[in-house]
């Protein structure tokens, strides 16, 4: 909008004895730009008409450079008022900022005055904001719009006042500036033109600072979210629990905005405790409430509460403390590795999938209760009991996976989860997890992740599976050799495969020892029988990523002077094995190398060199 000049006389022309001066409104100038109003050029035209004295121009330019510096609102407001007072030789000045949310004008700076809010349209300030016109009042006490209460409160006497709208380049009303009591007289037409030019500068400068401040506010919010995130992440298990006869793997991939997922897997009194939960909403609150719930579950179970009691107690506590519209879906399970019985409660978390290895199908289990905190629970619901058979996989996924939508708006869904599980159930669960995440990523087709993604997989070792952990030391090599020797003897494997298996194991193991010296965890080796041979998975956590499958090739044809032993081990491993895959889970800093050696590899390895 164009700020038009309006004098008290125009606004109150019917008043007898008015000393206001009336001028015609320069409407034509507004239409000169094809309907697109151009504030600056019109101001320029007006200033040119009046022949701005060099002194005034100098003052305006001085203000422009002074207003370039401040980056915080209070400094900028003070600077604007100081500049306006100086340029217009006013005794006092104030800036009212427009609050577009409440449609009020807020007095942020006024010497000797408390902050005040004025509705749009009320008084001189409100009228100026509404009409976006300059109001020049030579005698305030003769103008009914003037509020003398301000003077009474401050003890100051306002004689004359110039009220002008602050409108930026984009026609946005930033606020209203008031200048009081011109030294040695009243504000005249020249002052109005000068003030108008000044107002444009001030409006732009103020708007710039406001945007900067909102960016800073956004940054503060981001930092708060990050802190909540850290709290949430700190409760996640740092290492996979070691459970005889079971392979456990979980991951958590946070969405950019905080979601409220968590998971846990730990051994308590010989039982494997499994938790996967998802608090509704985004932002700091769900991250913190799910963290709180997680802690309560841990405490309840460590005090030997049974599942139903833990669920009921935690639920009832959350029902009291969570806001009305919030709740947490949660799976809490306990697996006895001796009897293979899994008992679980699911508060709105579902479906729970169990891959039945014998049938080759997935069973789906519905929740046993409503989400935690939704309302009080009178009595614990009956838990689900099932027995994990060899090769069975328990699949817990948060709805960040099930509801992940592709660009066509289709959700990933549990059927796709089941398909991936059926296809990749044979290998270690860490591998299955990687396949699930890959499938999800491929499905998403670049669509952004909008919710936390959490996965928890538990697999009972199939018959014939062997697993062992090795100290991260070259001294553990003889144990590795003894392990493969035992595996080959037990499984009646082709002894011709052994040199290759040993070679790959040693090279990859020494690589882990050499290049992750800070790693403290053991290296885990899983051996699974496959047709014609075996698949070995080596898992190393608390380490930086190093993709052994992409290590640079060695120039084996170089003359001896340029040959170095470095890199040769991986180079040869890649040549000797059927396949070599590398995966890294950043959330657990876990490297996993999988290689396969079968009769096919052996026949290739013993072929004369033809390449």
């Amino acid at each position, binding site marked *: 909008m164009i700020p038009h000049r309006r004098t008290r006389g125009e606004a109150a022309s019917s008043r007898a004895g008015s000393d206001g001066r009336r001028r015609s409104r320069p409407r034509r100038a507004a239409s000169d730009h094809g309907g697109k109003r151009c504030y600056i050029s019109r101001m320029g035209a007006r200033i040119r008409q009046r022949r701005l004295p060099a002194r005034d121009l100098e003052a305006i330019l001085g203000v422009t450079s002074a207003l370039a510096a401040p980056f915080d609102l209070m400094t900028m407001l003070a600077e604007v008022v100081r500049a306006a007072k100086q340029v217009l030789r006013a005794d006092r000045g104030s800036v009212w900022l427009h609050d577009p949310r409440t449609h009020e004008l807020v007095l942020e700076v006024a010497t000797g005055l408390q902050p005040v809010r004025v509705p749009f349209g009320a008084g001189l300030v409100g009228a100026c904001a509404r009409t976006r016109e300059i109001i020049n009042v030579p005698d305030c006490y003769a103008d009914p719009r003037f509020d003398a209460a301000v003077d009474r409160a401050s003890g100051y006497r306002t004689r004359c006042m110039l009220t002008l709208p602050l409108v930026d380049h984009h026609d946005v009303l930033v606020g209203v500036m008031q200048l009081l009591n011109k030294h040695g007289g009243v504000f005249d037409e020249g002052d109005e033109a000068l003030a108008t030019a000044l107002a444009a500068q001030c409006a732009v400068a103020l708007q710039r600072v406001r945007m900067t401040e909102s960016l800073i506010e956004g940054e503060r919010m981001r930092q708060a979210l990050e802190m909540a995130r850290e709290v949430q992440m700190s409760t996640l298990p740092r290492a996979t629990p070691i459970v005889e006869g079971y392979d456990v793997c979980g991951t958590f991939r946070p969405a950019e905005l905080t979601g409220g997922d968590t998971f846990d897997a730990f051994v308590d009194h010989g039982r494997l405790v499994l938790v996967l939960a998802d608090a509704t909403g985004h932002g700091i609150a769900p991250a913190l409430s799910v963290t709180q719930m997680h802690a309560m579950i841990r405490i309840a179970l460590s005090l030997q509460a049974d599942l139903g009691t833990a669920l009921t107690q935690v639920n009832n506590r959350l029902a009291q403390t969570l806001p009305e519209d919030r709740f947490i879906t949660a799976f809490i399970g306990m697996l006895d590795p001796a009897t293979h019985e899994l008992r679980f409660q699911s508060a709105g978390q579902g479906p729970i999938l169990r891959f039945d290895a014998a049938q080759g199908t997935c069973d789906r289990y519905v929740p046993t209760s409503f989400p935690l905190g939704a309302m009080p629970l009178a009595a614990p619901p009956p838990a689900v009991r099932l027995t994990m058979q060899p090769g069975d996989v328990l699949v817990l996924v948060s709805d960040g996976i099930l509801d992940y939508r592709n660009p066509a708006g289709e959700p990933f869904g549990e059927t796709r989860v089941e398909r991936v599980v059926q296809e990749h159930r044979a290998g270690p669960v860490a591998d299955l997890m990687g396949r699930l995440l890959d499938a999800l990523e491929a499905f998403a087709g670049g669509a952004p992740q909008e919710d936390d993604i959490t996965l928890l997989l538990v697999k009972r070792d199939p018959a014939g599976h062997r697993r062992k952990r090795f100290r991260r030391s*070259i*001294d553990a*090599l*003889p144990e590795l*050799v003894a392990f493969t020797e035992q595996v080959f003897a037990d499984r009646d494997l082709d002894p011709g495969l052994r*040199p*290759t298996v*040993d*070679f790959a194991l*040693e*090279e990859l193991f*020494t690589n882990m020892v050499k290049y992750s010296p800070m790693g403290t965890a053991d290296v885990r080796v899983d051996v699974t029988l496959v047709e014609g041979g075996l698949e070995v998975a080596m898992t190393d956590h608390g380490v930086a990523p190093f993709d052994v499958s992409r290590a640079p090739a*060695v*120039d*084996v*044809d*170089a003359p*001896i*002077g340029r*040959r*170095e*032993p470095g890199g*040769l*081990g991986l*180079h*040869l491993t890649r*040549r*000797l094995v059927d396949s070599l895959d590398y995966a890294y889970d950043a959330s657990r800093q876990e490297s996993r190398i999988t290689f396969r050696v079968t009769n096919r590899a052996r026949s290739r*390895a*013993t072929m004369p*060199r033809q390449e």
Partner: protein
Amino acid sequence: MLTIDYGNDGAVVAAGRLDAAQAPTAQAFLDSVQGTVTLDLAGLDYISSAGLGVLLKTQKRLMSSGGRLRLSGVRPHLRDIFVYSGFDKLFEIEPAR
């Protein structure tokens, strides 16, 4: 385990496993040999890249003073390793009889 010592015919005989754990033992022994040396590997079941590194270092040292390391009795699966690593071009290799 690895054993490494002079045999009856003056060749160095290495037997067992030449892996990363045993490489320092092999290196210490081979650092003492001079001139042109035959290394009898007929009893060597296994070699890893750490073992290859020991052989490479020894070969470089001997060649700088006009000598060299010859490998004899190399078994098929070891030969694959030598071929894939290009070591067959750095060493004179005599296969196992």
